[in-house]
């Protein structure tokens, strides 16, 4: 049972990675590692900034 649960976790984690659900976590890691000067963006600020930047730099989707 634990193995099934662990397998599901790995799958969910993978799918989350593909969707980009872990973007904030990675931003925090980067912030931590890069010798930060100020506090990081909060989760809410980060996601706002992320989608708002997409407004000005759109990415195509394939046919």
């Amino acid at each position, binding site marked *: 049972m634990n193995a099934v649960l662990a397998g599901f976790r790995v799958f969910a984690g*993978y799918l989350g*990675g593909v969707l*980009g659900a872990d973007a904030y976590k990675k931003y925090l890691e980067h912030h931590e590692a890069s010798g930060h000067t100020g506090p990081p963006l909060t989760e809410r600020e980060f996601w706002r*900034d992320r*989608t708002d930047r*997409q407004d000005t730099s759109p990415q195509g*989707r*394939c*046919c």
Partner: protein
Amino acid sequence: MGTMPDGTKRDSTNSSMHSSTHATAQLDDGIVPDPSHPPTSVDESVRDSADRTWTPAKIALWAAIALLGGVAWFMLAIIRGETVNAIWFVFASVCTYLIGYRFYSKVIERYLAKPNDRRATPAEYKADGKDYVRTDRNVLFGHHFAAIAGAGPLVGPVIAAQMGYLPGTIWIIIGVVLAGAVQDYLVLFFSMRRGGRSLGQMAREELGVIGGTAALVATLLIMVIIVAILALVVVNALGESPWGVFSVGMTIPIALFMGVYLRFIRPGKVMEVSLIGFVLLMAAIIGGGAVAGTEWGAAFFHLDKVTIAWGLIIYGFIAAILPVWLLLAPRDYLSTFMKIGVIVMLALAIIVVRPEISVPAFSEYAGRDNGPVFSGALFPFLFVTIACGALSGFHALIASGTTPKLIEKERQTRLIGYGGMLMESFVAIMALVAAISIDRGIYFAMNAPVALTGGTVETAAAWVNSLGLSGVNITAGDLAQTAKDVGEQSIVSRSGGAPTLAVGLAHIMQQFIGGTAMMAFWYHFAIMFEALFILTAVDAGTRVARFMLQDSIGNFIPKFKEHSWRPGAWLCTAIMVAAWGAVLIMGVTDPLGGINTLFPLFGIANQLLAAIALSVCLAIAAKRTALKYLWIVAVPLAFAAVVTITASFYKIFSPVPAVGYFANNAAFAKALADGKTSFGTAKTQAAMEAVVRNTMVQGWLSIIFVALSIIVIITAVMATIKALRNTAAGLPNAENEDPARASRVFAPAGFVPTAAERDLMTEWNQHPAGERLEKSGHH
């Protein structure tokens, strides 16, 4: 998915051996690695010897793969039984992909790309935690695949099935190994070496102002055509289908809800909201059946194609000016979620159900140029009908967009670029299998224009039976029953590929889960996910095209370069929507059956973009490799150029009205001049005038495309010759790559780490945490 250090014991002999061998190799790349770090690349001699050591187990494995692939190809191509089992398609494709990936992509890597893992990728030296982020290779593989795969590989193979299964199968599988995956890999690699620059920017740098401008204009036009024809596929799938209109329409409020949820209620809970969205989506499909079953629902959501087309145009404009967070981003999550799920499910279903295919390898239309689904001879039109899945120029825009900014190590580009495209090719094969698993009579009744089928089950059955296709004999009852099974009022002349694929998928899936009672659900499930991909592509395509237009106008009127300037943004959006909207309306109202005349233009546009991308690759490759290896790029480029230029010339110059746009134009113009009130499939004078107008537009589009592409190809060949001359004369070539910087991380190149990579990973994991960069792991 790195293996974490499991203990305290350090295998010092092993790691010191690697460090010492490493110090002696690759000293000519101008990179000075941090001496306190373990090596950032597996030593070349170690990797080479592992590659070249053929243990008996390894030999046996590859012999088995080759043998299985050979048997599968034999079953598909040589054996002529009554039927062929679908599992052979899976074996033939997967074994060929494995061999192409293991052997051919390594040749490209060794002689052309020449990745160097000691060099930092943009995700490392430009890291900002937002756009440039090192991403686990397996996650990035999924991400890249989701970005390149859409409705294209699901539609083209279905339409091409008119000629039988074999021509399409060969082109999809061989084409991807020698052309499509090569393009994706090289564009990704070259863009990565240039900090993630776009194809347009690379074209300008490598080909000069003329070539670069031609590439930019061609890209913009091609995007308009591609968006228009994708939209046409949706319109054809939803026309006169209350169930489809309701459930696809519901995706808009669902996406809006998800957007608001992510922005205000629970920011960043992407998985959570995707699951909620998925459940709502399923409810919309099931609810659609109920709504379409009621009298008011059937009346209210029963829309003709022209109304839907106008709805889509208005929607397209609004969606492209709404903020990304409200509609585009949430629907993108939903679309990705569905994409991965559906593809895994379809693969499982085909492997479990293993349908018997009764479509012949080569159909009666393989040797003719007047097929009802698309007109034109096998060469070159089959090769433009199937674009995505074999060779898709559009991928070059993705491979030079987000993905190169996320790559962790240079060697991973082979897995992500080449491997990702193989995956898309597999999707195309599965779509082909789904489409040919249905009865051929039904296939032709669904895919021929109304002008031929007459639109009713009786006339359609009579027309199909009159074609004289071997083994085809359908009754009006068969067509009515199939429509009833999938919950539609009619399936006659449901052209565009999507409905046929949906019937095929429903046919396979109901044997896997649910039985005939579930067929209607599976049909609308398939329509729904195709519509979802396409609506996302329409939105995103309009936005990208709008920015390209704004930047171009901005060269003359600087104000337009300010992307936040509303009037400019709205005006450019309106122009782009009007452009694709005009082509869409033209396709919907075309008396000749829009998709049948326009789909070749879609394929030609996509392949011309591929020719442009390969031209840029050729010009770059000429600077970094010997002449004798340039064939790796030159062969697919020559093929794409010959196919698309020939196809364009047929479309422009062919005297056969069914093939040549201008020949058709002349025929209809003459009929009008003669005072005829109906001609061919056009029953009224207005319809005849529409044909005259449409063929003129389509003809001129073909001329513009082919002219622009020829300019790009010529400038690329000139740049290539210049680079080769420089090399021969010992002169340096201008290099547009970003300067090399030493990498400070290590990660394996493939799905499964090799022994040497595992040793190196262990060494890195034992390296003091404070001295290495954060891990890129995803969980």
